[in-house]
């Protein structure tokens, strides 16, 4: 049982990575979105928002932009399951003598790898916004991005199992991904949100990811910018990862 599982996981991961390396155009467009948000929205808002948070707005949103990068690339990566269903390759996997949960774990791991690479690219622009990160902080941010990516990729797979065709793509974008981003505290602290909206924020796993990224990005204890403790953030992410990947695997094992 162990060998078929891991060989299938490695097939899924290798396939995704080969495609990721080949489709450089796609990588560029994936990287463009967070950069546009960071530099256009960030620099515009810096002039407007009073900086009583102890830092310019463009620096405040940096962890949120890393979170955004991970969110989009993880969800996109796992939603490729829907493309696979639509364009047939999934059937090749489903009739192979391998446990189906291997497909889920493989997709989650490849989503993690792809997202972490993109988070690294975004991380490299931090000097341009005047943010000073130590090597330790950078490594911490990357590791955290990987954890967040695994959590969100698993969530993406879970979402993808409920959809059969590509038409659902815009539904997922507009009703799941964008609200998750806006509710995450990436652009404004969750504390400032009205109670009802703040409630929704607390149900959003990305909120904890962004908060943890803030803890790692800002060295001095800026008590005003954090919403939760780092310990709580990490616990929520780890628990969500397990729950999502297990439910995703179970949903996938269930016979049609």
């Amino acid at each position, binding site marked *: 049982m162990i060998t078929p599982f891991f060989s299938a996981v490695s*097939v899924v991961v290798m*396939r995704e990575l080969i495609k990721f390396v080949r489709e450089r155009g796609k990588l560029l467009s994936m990287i463009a979105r967070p950069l546009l948000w960071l530099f256009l929205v960030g620099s515009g808002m810096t002039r407007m928002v009073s900086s009583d948070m102890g830092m310019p707005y463009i620096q405040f949103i940096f962890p949120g932009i890393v979170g955004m990068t991970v969110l989009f690339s993880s969800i996109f990566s796992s939603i490729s399951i829907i493309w696979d269903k639509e364009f047939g390759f999934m059937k090749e996997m489903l*009739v192979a*003598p*391998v446990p189906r949960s291997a497909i889920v774990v493989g997709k989650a791991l490849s989503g993690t790898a792809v997202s972490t690479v993109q988070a690294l690219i975004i991380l490299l622009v931090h000097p341009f916004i005047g943010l000073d990160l130590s090597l330790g902080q950078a490594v911490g941010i990357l590791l955290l991005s990987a954890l967040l990516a695994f959590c969100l990729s698993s969530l993406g797979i879970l979402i993808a199992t409920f959809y059969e065709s590509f038409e659902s793509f815009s539904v997922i974008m507009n009703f799941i991904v964008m609200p998750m981003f806006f509710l995450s505290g990436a652009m404004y602290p969750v504390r400032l949100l009205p109670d009802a909206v703040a409630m929704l924020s607390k149900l959003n796993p990305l909120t904890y990811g962004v908060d943890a990224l803030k803890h790692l990005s800002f060295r001095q204890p800026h008590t005003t910018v954090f919403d939760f403790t780092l310990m709580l953030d990490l616990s929520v992410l780890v628990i969500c990862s397990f729950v999502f990947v297990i439910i995703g695997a179970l949903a996938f094992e269930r016979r049609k």
Partner: protein
Amino acid sequence: MAIISVENLSRAFARTKAVDTVSFSVDAESIFGFLGPNGAGKTTTINILCTLLAPTEGRASIDGQDCVHDAASVRERIGIVFQDNTLDKELSAYENLWFHAKLYRVPRDERKIRVEEALVFAGLIDRRNDPVKRFSGGMKRRLEVARAIVHQPKVLFLDEPTIGLDPQSRSSLWEFIGQLPKTRGVTIFMTTHYLDEAEICDRIAIIDHGRIIAEGTPDELKKLVGGDVIYLKTTNNTAAIQMLHDSLELHAEEREAEIFISTSRGDACIPKLIGALADSVVSVRLQRPTLNDVFLKLTGRAMREEPVSGSDTVREAVRSYRKRFERGK
């Protein structure tokens, strides 16, 4: 010896029974054809045999392994070419086969040899590093068949393998598939709604509305329709008809300047005709009943190609849109 055996298999979707108490068995190293119009239950049966779908009733087994309870061992023993293409078009031919070999746990040291051998077999070794999206329809199909045999399955399922191919690719694909039972010891289970393609099968089951309505060798099925038809041209048709009636006791009649004779064994009858009529024969034509005649006789409907379904058109549109989008980038 039967390698596939199916007993009273049924599968219902909502209110309709897609497969209705179907039983048959397939001998090892033979070609078995499942023939019927679209929506007759062919793909549902294949999906059950491939462990993708659980039957509502009855049982199916492959090489002694139950398709429901021993799904994993069934999967190891079969190779499948689905109706829709399931290759990864972004990957090369070699990569598609290599991943397949790894999924089916072909030992590492054998993997490269087997993949290359399959590519040679499919006549695609020179294109092994090209991405599959640059392949023609016929090449993709050959590659899919090659992929399905990389792990040396005992049974190969082909679901409408030639759908959407031009006549030339179709015949070259059949030539390629037809040699598999002998050269590889593979049993082939195929579905088709092209009647002429079913001729290559050792045995055929005709399925309509989820039920098997006839089963046998192509020749046996054709005998259900009745005899062969011989068309004869002579220098003097009236005299010839009289002569056939007198000396061979055959009933013959003239139709559009040809003599029309219906007989149970046309091939054996022709020498007698020529012997009796000697030099007056200008031409002889033997027409055997086709499987279409069989289907017509059994169901009262002709089996013809049906228009492409709505979802296929949508899918095709998306594919071409994606292609354009990818090129445009």
